[in-house]
């Protein structure tokens, strides 16, 4: 589904990504973790070309992301993305947030888009809030709407960039529950997150990044079960976040 081959990226002199190689297969849930500033957001954003890269190659269902001839809007419309700060469109009602891209990008009619949007809104438990605006919802609710908005495009894969780290602690679970359900239904997912409980529950693989490099890329069982076989950096990181 997603292949990342030897990707490197620089901001001027500063190398953010160094020779990153990994892959996400259909139906897999890959969790990406690592210290702040290690390049997790940058890596996940290269997948839908929100961040350009200078070396290497990324393929999404065989389509080369870095190829100048690739129709990026079309590619992005098939890749759902959920952001740390939700990024709902504040001037649009929840319903309009759910239907605008279906209509303007996919060319669906209003009724069809509305039908789909409301079904998904119901699925994330927010049907009663359809007429509200993003600013009238809590962070957790906004993030669930953001997930529904991405799903409305019928994506082949979902990217999450720290979807719960801007939330108050009591709202983290309502978002994780939606993500777990999605994973269990077989959605292909690439998730930057430090929620190790989520990783333990649904991850197929765990990637650990540090200073722009993929340091660990192994199955969930290897990652959590054989800590002694993990790198020093990964163990230090895990011991820090598992203390909480």
């Amino acid at each position: 589904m997603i292949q990342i081959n030897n990707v490197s990226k620089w901001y001027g002199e500063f190398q953010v990504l160094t020779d990153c190689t990994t892959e996400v297969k259909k139906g897999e849930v890959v969790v990406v973790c690592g210290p702040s500033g290690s390049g997790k957001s940058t890596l996940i954003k290269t997948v839908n070309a929100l961040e350009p890269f200078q070396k290497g190659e990324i393929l999404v269902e065989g389509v080369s992301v870095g190829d100048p001839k690739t129709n990026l809007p079309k590619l992005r419309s098939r890749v759902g993305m959920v952001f740390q700060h939700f990024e709902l469109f504040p001037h649009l009602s929840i319903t309009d947030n759910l239907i605008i891209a279906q209509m303007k990008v996919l060319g669906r009619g209003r009724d069809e888009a509305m039908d789909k949007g409301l079904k998904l809104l119901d699925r994330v438990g927010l049907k009663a809030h359809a007429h509200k605006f993003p600013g009238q919802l809590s962070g957790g609710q906004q993030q669930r709407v953001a997930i529904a908005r991405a799903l409305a495009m019928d994506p082949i894969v979902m990217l999450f960039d720290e979807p719960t780290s801007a939330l108050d602690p009591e709202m983290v679970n309502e978002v994780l529950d939606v993500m777990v359900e999605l994973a269990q239904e077989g959605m292909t997912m690439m998730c930057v997150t430090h929620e190790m409980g989520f990783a333990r529950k649904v991850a197929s693989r765990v990637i650990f990044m540090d200073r722009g490099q993929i340091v660990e890329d192994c199955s969930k069982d290897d990652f959590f079960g054989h800590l002694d076989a993990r790198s020093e950096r990964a163990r230090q990181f895990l011991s820090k976040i598992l203390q909480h």
Partner: protein
Amino acid sequence: MSQYQWNWSVVLEQVSGTEEFYYQWLAAGLGWTVATALSAWVLALVVGSLIGILRTVPSKPVAALATAYVEVFRNIPLIVQMFLWFFVLPELVPHNLGIWMKQSMPLPEFTTAVIALGFFTSARVAEQVRTGILALPRGQKNAGLAMGFTLGQTYRYVLLPMAYRIVIPPLTSEFMNIFKNSAVALAIGLTELTFQMRQITGEYAPANPIEVMTVVSALYLLVAFSVNRVMALIERKTRVPGYISGGH
């Protein structure tokens, strides 16, 4: 000090040697002022928005050109721009076009005033639009693109609707400025409100300039007040429920 003979009804008097009344002159002046300012505002909004948007696009050369545009139109005094459009431009364009501009262009003073005032104000509008776009959380653009919108659609559906809302207050003051600035057009002979005021107080009613000036000032105030109310209404109608400005 000599005794000033107050006569508030001066504006209702007939202009000596004509069939007309002073209030008709003032009304005609007000009409030109409003027509000029409104037309120039439409031009300024369209051009200013375009330039403001271009200043924020990823392409460096495009953004640099837009910046140069703003600097030129913002920093040359309006009256100089007015003269350049009116007297100099016809000499620079192809001969036949120049002749047409000087001899047969309809409403030459009005047309020139609208263009000069419109482009001058567009530079200021551009700055406001750009500020509004840059004030949005950076993630909004990515969110639009990630949905599959093109860059154009992202501006159209995601960035601009919020950017314009944010800059309604500064745009209101630009909108009010354009009415005041339209008085500069008297320099090229547009018979707008200030032109009429000068004509009346200079040649026709030298005994009662204060009353005429007071009436004219009151008319400008009335216009400014109306603009303010209209913009406040627009601001209220477009207010986003629950939105706290500043974002995150």
